[in-house]
């Protein structure tokens, strides 16, 4: 047993740190730290910098233009990026679609779409969830009918994150209603500029517009945009969900949030001293910090086991639950550290925001926005059911 990084891993970490130090704009980092929505240009700019470095797709094999990193390297990159408040790599093309195309796509699809993802030619979004389906993903009803050399798509997707910036969407659509509900699903790539596609933003309770509804009204999609085989989409979807779950613990994000919380607790005054010295508040911080210390190692243990070739099981579900619990507790403590001072939202800033608005008010906005963590990507209830299912088998 050895808790230390290898010399190679340490050298890699230093390289990542040097890159972040040199290439990450402090103003951009500040926006990330305060959970302010980034513009499309800011996200694209960061992707371009990473791509120039060959680091945009850490999870892709080198033959597809990826960095081909080990799980530990990806972990180091993600943790360092989060701690430096670098923008998160938008996951839809890189982390989700890429692996699916690499595994199940045709040679033509790979040659066409993968370079465009790296170059930023396309902005992808995800068409999985539907209104009324909730956690029952396979119950989807958006349908695609084959008509000659194209499919005609009708229906609706929802919770489409950053769909307002996207020109392409990968969708799960129903191509058959026979058999089990999982068996009639196909995986389609749809150009969002096609007539009949409508995007409507959903405003969230923190005032941001990061998710959308996407409507399809007789949208024609060429058959060559079908990935893999018709009615086999559920297999690809599950594969994608597995890949979505790297970095599911969010150790880096939690570490950054903990540092921010400590900074706030140091600055806030309580009984004439820093709040950080209040025994009760200090104990609350300590409890979540201690939980994070353990989860960070749980995460590394699981990455290490995966690197040794052990089959992944319920680990990602465990990390999802614990990781989101920790982040939500950190968000709650930061909000509580500001107390009565954090009773407005950044969205109100355009009409006479209070002093220090962006620092203080990000606390409540972040708390509100991050309630999503335990809902999306398979709610924590779904994750518990997955774990329990494995436990039931013994």
């Amino acid at each position, binding site marked *: 047993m050895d808790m230390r990084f290898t010399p190679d891993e340490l050298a890699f970490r230093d390289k990542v740190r040097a890159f972040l130090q040199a290439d990450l704009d402090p103003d951009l980092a500040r926006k990330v730290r305060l959970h302010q929505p980034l513009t499309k240009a800011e996200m694209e700019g960061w992707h371009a910098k990473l791509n120039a470095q060959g680091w945009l797709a850490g999870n892709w094999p080198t033959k597809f233009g990826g960095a081909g990193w080990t799980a530990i390297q990806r972990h180091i990159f993600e943790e360092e990026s989060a701690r430096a408040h670098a923008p998160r790599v938008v996951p839809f093309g890189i982390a989700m679609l890429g692996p699916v195309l690499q595994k199940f796509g045709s040679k033509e699809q790979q040659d066409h779409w993968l370079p465009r993802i790296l170059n930023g030619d396309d902005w992808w979004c995800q068409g999985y969830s539907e209104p009324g389906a909730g956690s029952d993903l396979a119950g989807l009803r958006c349908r695609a009918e084959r008509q000659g050399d194209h499919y005609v798509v009708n229906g609706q997707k929802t919770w489409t994150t950053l769909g307002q910036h996207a020109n392409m969407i990968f969708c799960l659509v129903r191509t058959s209603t026979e058999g089990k509900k999982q068996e009639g699903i196909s995986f389609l790539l749809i150009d969002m500029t096609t007539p009949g596609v409508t995007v409507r933003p959903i405003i969230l309770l923190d005032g941001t517009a990061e998710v959308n509804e996407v409507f399809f009204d007789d949208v024609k999609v060429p058959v060559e945009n079908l990935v893999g085989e018709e009615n086999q989409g559920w297999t690809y979807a599950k594969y994608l969900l597995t890949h979505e779950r790297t970095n599911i613990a969010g150790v880096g994000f939690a570490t950054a949030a903990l540092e921010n919380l400590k900074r706030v607790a140091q600055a806030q005054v309580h009984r004439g001293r820093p709040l950080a010295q209040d025994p*009760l508040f200090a104990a609350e911080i300590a409890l979540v910090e201690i939980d994070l210390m353990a989860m960070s190692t749980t995460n590394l243990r699981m990455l290490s086991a995966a690197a040794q070739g052990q089959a992944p099981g319920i680990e990602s579900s465990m990390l999802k639950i614990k990781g989101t619990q920790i982040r939500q507790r950190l968000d709650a403590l930061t909000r509580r550290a500001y107390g009565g001072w954090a*009773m407005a939202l950044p969205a*109100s800033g355009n009409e006479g925001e209070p002093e220090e608005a962006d620092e203080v008010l990000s606390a409540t906005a972040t708390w509100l926005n991050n309630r999503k963590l335990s809902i999306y990507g398979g709610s924590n*209830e779904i994750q518990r059911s997955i774990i329990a299912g494995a436990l039931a088998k013994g």
Partner: protein
Amino acid sequence: MDFQLSDDHRMLQDSLRGILTRHSGDALWPALVEAGVPAALLTEDEGGFDGSGAAIALIFEEMGRAGVALPLTGTMIGAAAMAQAGRPAEDGAIVAFADAEPGTRYDRGVAIRAEGDRLTGRKTMIAGAEDATAIVVTTADALWLVQPGAEGLSMRGYPLIDGQRGADLELDATPALRLGGLADFGVVLSRGVLAHAALALGTITAAVDLTMDYLRTRKQFGQPLMSFQALAHRAADLAVEVEQARSAVVNLAGHLTDDTPLRDRHLQACKVTVGRVARLVAEEAIQLHGGIGMTEEYALAAMVRRLLAADAAMGDADWHLERFALGEPAWA
């Protein structure tokens, strides 16, 4: 021992529900004033006709349930404090209560100080300040009356998370009238706490009702959500905690005019219980709803923000827990 509403209070509740059903927006405040609701918040001595804990709890619970965003709490505290100090506000006036400060959770006197009869410093997140005809300001140990147009006073308004308009105040040697020491206004300030707690209780009830309704009607995997035992048991736990919050409000209402430390202990216990239940309900209501609970257009969003605001008003659960545990008074 009797926990039933009196006949008078039942009539008040009925009339209030009627007003809240019929009026909204800008029309609501005049309707409430016309129906004499502000008077029910003040004692006869203060120029009202009730001011009992039961009346305050009843009125603000209804406000919370209906999602009303009006500076009624500040007006009640401010008007009562002014009346107690022999300077009653005019009928129907809006009084702002400037309590929160930047740079601290809920401590007083961190960002503001008094020198003689002038105040210098900052107050923040003050509901109704822009429309107020008088502002009651707290410092470390006293209550002060400041006129909106006073020298050295500037104001910047913005929306608060509870749906009201708020403002930051900047005071630069602003003339102020010292109404008295904080502890002298213990009963008045405690009524303010009760108002916020009852407001929270109404919001808690509304959010839990909405959630239960959703669990009953929304289906997943072909079954109503309530038929999933893990969710059903969490719903049951919520129901238990709602009763605890209600009891905590009853306790403060019932001990509002008792001597300290009994009143203070019930006040702190009330804020701790209601604040913690409010947080729990905010989190669980969103989670049990799933994605829809995150959206602005669904009624829960505004309730969740009001729950956070109600916990925070005049000291949150953390702040009052510490004081309760240390055996400290509420107002000192």
